[in-house]
C-alpha cells in the first residue's frame, strides 16, 4: 500500500436520538417523522478512526450511508469532520431491509467506489443494536473482519489491532483489505471545526445514489431481499410493581433486613 493512496470507507447510520413510540391499532410503532436524528454514536468513532489514519498515512476517506433523504444530514456532519467524499444510497425500495439486505446494498456502493484498503463501521447502532451489518458486509465483500477494535497498532501490509472480546485482550493481525468495527474506547471523535461545517454546507456535496446507480438487484433489497421481518413490537416486559416503603433510614434498613431473612439470604437469629 503506497503512501498517500490509502482509501478508507466508513459506513455510518442516522438514528433517532431518542426512541419515540406510538400505539396504532393496538400495536407499537416506531415514530420517525419529526423525531430528531443523530449520527449513530459509535459511527463518530469510526469516522474519527478513518480520518486519523489518513492524517497519518495520507489518502481519502469516503463516508457512505443507506437511508431515506433526511440521512443526508448525517453525511454532512461527516463532511464537516473532514471526510473527502460523502455518498447517500437512497431508494424507496430499500425500506424494510434487514441486515442481510443492508449489507448487500452497502457492498454494491463500495464496489462502485472501487478499490479500498479498509472499511470501518461502528460496532453497533443504538436503534437496531444488532452489530450485524459490519460482519455481513465483510462477508459480502469477501474480506476478513474483526470487531470491537479498541486500538490500531499498525497498518502496513497487514492491519494489527487490539481488541477486547469476552474478557480476552487480543492482538490480531488481519490482511488488507479488511473491515473493522470499532468500540468507544478507540478514540475521542473531534467536533467539526467551524470551517469544517462551513465547507460541508458550502463547497462539498453529498452524492445521492439509487439502486440503479449501484447496479443493485432490487430483489435482494428491502422487504423482498430480507430473510427476517418484524412481526410485532411490544413494550419491554415489566414485572408487577411491588410495595414502596417510606420511613427513616434505620426503619428502612430493618425492613430490608427482614426481606433478607424472608428470602433465605440471611439466617434468622
Amino acid at each position, binding site marked *: 500500500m503506497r503512501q498517500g493512496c490509502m482509501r478508507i470507507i466508513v459506513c455510518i447510520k442516522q438514528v433517532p436520538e431518542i426512541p419515540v413510540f406510538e400505539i396504532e391499532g393496538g400495536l407499537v410503532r416506531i415514530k420517525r417523522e419529526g423525531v430528531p436524528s443523530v449520527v449513530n454514536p459509535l459511527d463518530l468513532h469510526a469516522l474519527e478512526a478513518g480520518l486519523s489514519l489518513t492524517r497519518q498515512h495520507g489518502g481519502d476517506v469516503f463516508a457512505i450511508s443507506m437511508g431515506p433523504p433526511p440521512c443526508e444530514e448525517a453525511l454532512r456532519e461527516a463532511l464537516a469532520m473532514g471526510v473527502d467524499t460523502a455518498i447517500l444510497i437512497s431508494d424507496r425500495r430499500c425500506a424494510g431491509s434487514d441486515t442481510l439486505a443492508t449489507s448487500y446494498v452497502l457492498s454494491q456502493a463500495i464496489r462502485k467506489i472501487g478499490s479500498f484498503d479498509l472499511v470501518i463501521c461502528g460496532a453497533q447502532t443504538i436503534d437496531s443494536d444488532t452489530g450485524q451489518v459490519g460482519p455481513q458486509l465483510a462477508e459480502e465483500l469477501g474480506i476478513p473482519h474483526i470487531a470491537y477494535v479498541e486500538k490500531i497498532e499498525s497498518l502496513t501490509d497487514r492491519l494489527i489491532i487490539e481488541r477486547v472480546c469476552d474478557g480476552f485482550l487480543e492482538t490480531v493481525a488481519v490482511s488488507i483489505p479488511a473491515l473493522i468495527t470499532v468500540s468507544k474506547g478507540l478514540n475521542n471523535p473531534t467536533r467539526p471545526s467551524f470551517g469544517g461545517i462551513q465547507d460541508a454546507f458550502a463547497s462539498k456535496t453529498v452524492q445521492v445514489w439509487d439502486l440503479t446507480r449501484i447496479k443493485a438487484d432490487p430483489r435482494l433489497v428491502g422487504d423482498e431481499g430480507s430473510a427476517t421481518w418484524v412481526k410485532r413490537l411490544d413494550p419491554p416486559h415489566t414485572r408487577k410493581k*411491588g410495595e414502596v*416503603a417510606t*420511613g427513616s433510614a434505620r426503619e428502612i434498613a430493618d425492613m430490608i433486613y427482614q426481606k433478607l431473612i424472608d428470602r433465605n439470604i*440471611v439466617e434468622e437469629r
Partner: protein
Amino acid sequence: MKTKATTRDNTRTKAGSCRGVWVFADHRNYFQDRVTLQILAKGRDLARDLETEVGVVVLGYGVSEFVMEYVAHGADIVYLIEDQRLAKYNVDIYTTVVCQLVERYRPEILLVGATDFGREFAPRVAKRLTTGLSADCVALEIDPVEKILLQTSPSFEGSVLATIVNSTARPQMATVRPGTFKERKHDHHRKARLIKPQIDLVGGTSRMEVLKVRKQPHRGVDLREAPIVICGGRGMGGKKGFGVLDRLGKLLGAEVGATRPPVSEGWAESDRLIGQTGRAIRPRLLITCGTSGAVQYTTGIQNSEYIIAINKDPDAPIFQSADFGAVGDAHQVLHHLIMRLEKETHG
C-alpha cells in the same frame, strides 16, 4: 398485520427439508460463562415442539471435556471438530467450519450465545448461508401454527421488544443473551451420538492471525452468574459510595455491579456494568441502590428473582421494576443495614 412472502432465493437450504435444533458451543469462558448450557436447555423445549433433536457443535482443540457437559445438559448429538488450527477462537476459520457443517447436515435452527464472539461470528455465518439472524434474543418460542421460530429481540437499547421471524430461509438463526434461559440440572445418565465430521479447513490458512491473547484480570464471579448482586447507580455519588457497596457485598457474599453513569465517571470498572448488550443478570436477589431505572438497565435485570430498590426519588422509574422499593438515601440506609448485618453475624 403485514404478511410477507420472501423471494430471496435460498436454494441451499429449503425450509421443510431441514431438521434439528443446533447450538454452537461457546466454551472459552466455561465454567463461569454458561450460556451454551442455558441455550441447550431452551433447545430441548424447541426440539420437543418440532419433534426433532438437539445438536451441539463443538470446535476447538482439547475440548472433549466439554462434550460430557453438553450431553448432560441436553444435547442428543455432538458434532465435534478438533484441530490445532481451531485452538484459538478465530472468526474466519470458525465461519468456514460451521457453514460446511450446516450445509452438510441441514439443521432447521442454529442458536449462538450472544457473547462478544457470538455477536461477530453468527452474522458472518448467516450471511454466508444467506439466512436470517436476530440478535440478543431474550425469548424464543415455536409458533404453534406455522412451526417457525419466534425470536424476541430488544431494539433501542431495550426500549422495545421486536418479535422477529425468518419465514423460509434456513437455518433460522438467533443469538441469545447469556442469562436469558435457565440451564437444566446436570444429568449424567443422558446419552448422545458423537459425530466427528471431516472438515476442509481450507489448508488451515486464515486471513486473520491471533497474535496474542491475554485474559483480562477480573475480580470474583462473573456478574451474570452471581446469585446475589448489589448494583449502584449515579445516586451512590462516587467511589466512596461504591466502597460501601463492596462492604455490603462482602457481608452478603454478593457481587457488586454498576449502571453506566458510575462506570463513565470511573467509580466502577467497566466489567461491572449491568444492562448493556449481553450483560443481563439473573440473581436470586438484586439490591439496586441509587439507580433511577433507565430502560437500558432494567432490561438487564428483568430475570432477577427478587429486586429490592433504594432511591431518594419516590417517582424514580426503578420502583416499577422492584418487588420491594424503599424511598430513602441509599448511603444512610446501607449504613444501617451494614451495622445490623455486622452485629448479627458477630453476635
